[in-house]
């Protein structure tokens, strides 16, 4: 049943995407590990980790597209779920440091020793176990999304109001995680990681494995999201996006459907955050910054909302552009460029890069058939 669910109505777009992602999962680590450093096809470790980061963002973008593109829930707080997943992974990595910290305390992370704490707070219990930490990567963002969505969707908060409270949610978490007494390392966050599952996080082999894992999780996240949107539930969710009250009059409990996709999406964002942290080597409260969540919305809009593949593409393209931009003399203008890009895309490419490219492709192949004009979905 699960396979049928994941593979139903496979189309070319999805097939190409999966082939690329799984191809990267295999070829990039092989090239990094086996080819000599001078070779033209060799991928340096730093590049591999950078692209690993982009692919984590791609998974985050897919999770946002699931709620925004298909269900019309414009979450301006998805960065919160990403960061929570990241913190759960970070807590595991902190516990792996053991007595190798600056203060050499076998139990307490350095920042707790520094704060004169005597024992591990209860909410850190269990994080030395990898399976437990992975469970928390899913559970913490999922539970927060569930509780938040339960209240918001049942009270029928929609549109701009919902966007504002999601933004408030991530802002509140930003403030909370900044506090030292919360027990998450305050301002500095969690860093100086040593091992993951017994392997040195800095080692080339570990980085290659993390990259592969990111590709695999991106593919899995994509398959799940795609399975959902092409199912009948996906059709209900699109119906909710376009005519919420009509859907209710057909007998669908709109709040439950929204709650389902919102929770799944938050878990997915959490996984993206968990893969991100060992690759960048740090998680701190700035990941909760409202601007991060807004940037994610821009990636999805740029790539093509409501296409999943487009969201992933947008995340990679925009972040690649960001890296290029911010490493040159243009660095101070990046935010203007990003804002400009958003405006240009919204005005001239309402279907994003992917939608526009596919329309052009279709026209080139069949010049006699005009592409079906599809009005842009409401909000």
């Amino acid at each position, binding site marked *: 049943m699960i396979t049928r669910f994941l593979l139903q109505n496979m189309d070319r777009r999805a097939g190409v995407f999966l082939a690329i992602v799984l191809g990267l999962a295999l070829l990039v680590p092989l090239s990094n590990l086996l080819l000599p450093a001078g070779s033209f096809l060799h991928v340096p470790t730093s590049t591999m980790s950078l692209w690993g980061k982009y692919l984590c963002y791609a998974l985050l973008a897919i999770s946002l597209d699931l709620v925004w593109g298909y269900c019309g829930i414009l979450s301006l707080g998805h960065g919160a779920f990403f960061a929570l997943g990241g913190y759960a992974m970070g807590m595991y990595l902190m516990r792996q440091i053991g007595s190798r910290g600056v203060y050499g305390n076998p139990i307490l992370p350095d920042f707790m020793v520094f704060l004169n704490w005597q024992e591990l707070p209860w909410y850190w219990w269990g994080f030395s176990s990898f399976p437990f930490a992975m469970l928390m990567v899913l559970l913490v963002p999922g539970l927060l999304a569930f509780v938040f969505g339960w209240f918001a969707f049942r009270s029928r908060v929609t549109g701009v109001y919902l966007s504002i409270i999601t933004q408030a949610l991530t802002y509140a978490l930003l403030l909370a995680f900044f506090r030292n007494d919360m027990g998450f390392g305050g301002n500095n966050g969690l860093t100086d990681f040593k091992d993951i599952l017994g392997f040195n996080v800095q080692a080339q082999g570990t980085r290659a494995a993390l990259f592969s894992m990111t590709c695999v999780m991106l593919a899995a996240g994509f398959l799940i999201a795609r399975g959902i949107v092409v199912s009948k*539930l996906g059709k209900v969710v699109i*119906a909710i996006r376009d005519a919420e009250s009509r859907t*209710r009059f057909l*007998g*669908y409990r709109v709040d439950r459907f929204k709650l389902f996709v919102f929770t799944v999406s938050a878990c997915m964002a959490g996984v993206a955050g968990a893969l991100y942290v060992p690759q960048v080597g740090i998680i701190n409260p700035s990941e909760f910054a409202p601007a991060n969540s807004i940037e994610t919305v821009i990636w999805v809009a740029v790539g093509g909302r409501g296409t999943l593949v487009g969201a992933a593409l947008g995340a990679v393209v925009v972040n690649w552009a960001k890296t290029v931009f911010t490493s040159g003399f243009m660095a101070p203008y990046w935010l203007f460029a990003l804002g400009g890009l958003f405006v240009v895309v919204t005005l001239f490419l309402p279907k994003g890069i992917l939608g526009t490219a596919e329309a052009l492709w279709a026209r080139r192949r069949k010049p006699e058939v005009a592409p079906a004009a599809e009005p842009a979905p409401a909000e």
Partner: protein
Amino acid sequence: MNAPVPGALTSSLLYLDGVSVSFDGFKAIRGLSLTIAPGEMRAIIGPNGAGKTTMMDIITGKTKPDVGTVMFGGTVDLTKLDEAAIANLGIGRKFQKPTVFDFHTIEDNILLALKSKRTVGKTLFWKTEGPQQKRIDDILGIVKLADKRDRLAGSLSHGQKQWLEIGMLLAQDPKLLLVDEPAAGMTDGETAQTAVLLKEIAQDHSVIVVEHDMGFIRELGVKVTVLHEGSVLAEGPLDQVSANERVVEVYLGR
């Protein structure tokens, strides 16, 4: 003037008594009483703003009445339920402004309406079985949209959307259908076809039809209720209410 007779509650499918609702002090419905028998088709007419659509809003849970009784099947208090629960009881609705899912194909619109369990789990792992596909095909045939099944509903004309919405009602297979202005925006030919279709549907469903087109109402040939300023002005066969002085004054005469 239309005080319900004793026993009307238990013998009726839909029972409204003394229902009032106001919006910002404006009484859109005042003391409305109405009963629909099982299997009955009823036509509702009345001037713009009489409260016809608001009455449907009350029955389907979109609007909560300030006072009054709204019972379904003699036992279920509709004022206590929300839209989805009421829909699942078996009350379907076609809106005055046709509302279909523009980004779904015509076939998917029917599929979404098709009578089935509406839970998250059931829809996530849904597979359309043979009999269900046959039902969808039949409905597409009845509303004459079979050849357009793969087109997006948003591309349909106003009249075709009306038919698609009637098709969705059929797919829901409700006990009671509330049909708000089904002939609006249709040509005379389409209007006549719609009347035929509704009469067919009425053979095994209870139906309330709101319409301004008197030719259409005459075609249906059923009991008529005239609403005016939120309450019932007259009730009876069309010829009888058309002869009513007050009805002519407020509605037909204009």
